[in-house]
């Protein structure tokens, strides 16, 4: 882990998203949900982007969803990823409806990828303080 030379998450507002990253370290996926209009949303903002009220909380979800789309990376923007090509850069839609950028892992690239296939979250402990939420084909 000490050798991990890829970019770690760099939050704009550390206080705002710390609960997400702490949950990820516990291998839990939590998503913002508005207390007023009940909507899940992603990415975290100071206010619910649906009703613009500030009252929302983190809610733990199952981490199950479907692969909305993907692209197979051959030429990463950051050379630190060169060792991983080809890899899948993807949009996953959770069953709660929100969509996030992630990687699809634990499958053949590109042959194991299929749009709309079921996926589940996996937690990649890339550094002592950072765990990335990735996805794999659902078991």
């Amino acid at each position: 882990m000490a050798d991990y030379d890829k970019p770690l998450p760099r939050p704009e507002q550390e206080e705002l998203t710390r609960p997400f990253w702490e949950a990820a370290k516990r291998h839990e996926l939590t998503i913002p949900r508005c207390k007023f209009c009940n909507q899940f949303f992603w990415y975290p903002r100071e206010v619910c982007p649906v009703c613009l009220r500030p009252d929302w909380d983190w809610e733990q979800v199952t981490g199950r969803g479907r692969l909305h789309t993907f692209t197979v990376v051959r030429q990463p923007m950051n050379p630190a990823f060169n060792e991983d090509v080809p890899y899948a850069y993807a949009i996953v839609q959770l069953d709660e409806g929100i969509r996030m950028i992630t990687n699809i892992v634990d499958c053949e690239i590109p042959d194991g990828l299929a749009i709309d296939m079921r996926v589940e979250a996996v937690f990649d402990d890339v550094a002592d303080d950072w765990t990335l939420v990735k996805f794999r084909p659902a078991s």
Partner: protein
Amino acid sequence: MSIRGEAAIAGFFELPTQKEYPGRSVLGLMAEAARGAILDAGLRKDDIDGLITTEGINSITVCEYLQIKPNYTTSMTAHGASGCSAIATAGAVVSAGMANYVLCVFGESRPRGSSRLRGESQARRPGAPSRASEWESPFGPVIAANGGYGLIKERYMYEYGATDEQFAKCASDERFNAAANENAVWFEKPVTTEDVLNSRYTNDPIHLLESVMPCSGAAAVIVTTAERARALPNPPVYLLGASGPAVRHDVIWQDDDITTTPVVMTAPKALQMAQYNASDIEFAEFYDCYTVLVMLTLEDAGLVPKGEIGNFYESTDTTYKGEFPINTDGGQIGAGQPGLAGGFRHVVEATRQIMGRAGERQVEKSDLCMVNG
């Protein structure tokens, strides 16, 4: 309210698109384009009382550099759509009487370090945390916008069954047009559909040759009232209808429907204002950073039924010689992308064609064009 019959383009100028203009600043290139457009319109610099430029370049700085003192100035902030948005805004400004002669001027000089006017790169320089640095960068994005358009193309092919060959035909038609455009970076360098398919993937399913190449260049257009345009030397290019910029998201994973573009919002309004149907359009100049974008927006504008654009390209000659010409200067895929002046090139080529000044590339029917940013 409408700008129909109220506003027109009276002149234009375009510098050749090149990989670099060594030693030239973006402001210097823009100044050269501005002078060319003012002269082409038969005006003097002192006539200019409006100036619109692009995202990342403060229009006030441009005014000062050019020593133009307008009543109205602004910078567009609609990414690639800034070029078309500038024309729509200029049309509204002259129609409302807020200015009489609006200079719309766009440019880029690469490498970007050569420019001292990069608000964008300041905001995004390494070290500044952002939405991307937290939620995208850890997953290894692709260079430039390739990733987003790869995500869109993969989903579009899945939903509608378009083939890679059909996308490649779009690129080879544009390269055919660029081969006849001496201002194009790929002048006299056509490619075949097979060449496109054989070019490497930057990221599947995006081939290198269906992507734009970042370039340098500049262009300018003068927008004025229809009445004033009629008193100037060039045949007026009337702005019949406009709408936008419409927005649904900044990054693609924030959009609900990634295979439909905001053109579904703007095209009906623009056509209604123009009092034409999509079927009346004779040729199209459409934003084309990637084949998939020009193809989706042609559908969303109503020029081709949704889901049919692949078959359309397969069966239609879209070159300047063809039955429905698209991106007759080569578009950005063929002529190059000088930053946000890339999206502006579609306005410039539409103007050139309608004025009858496209030379070898002159299309047969050149009265009614739809332009998209």
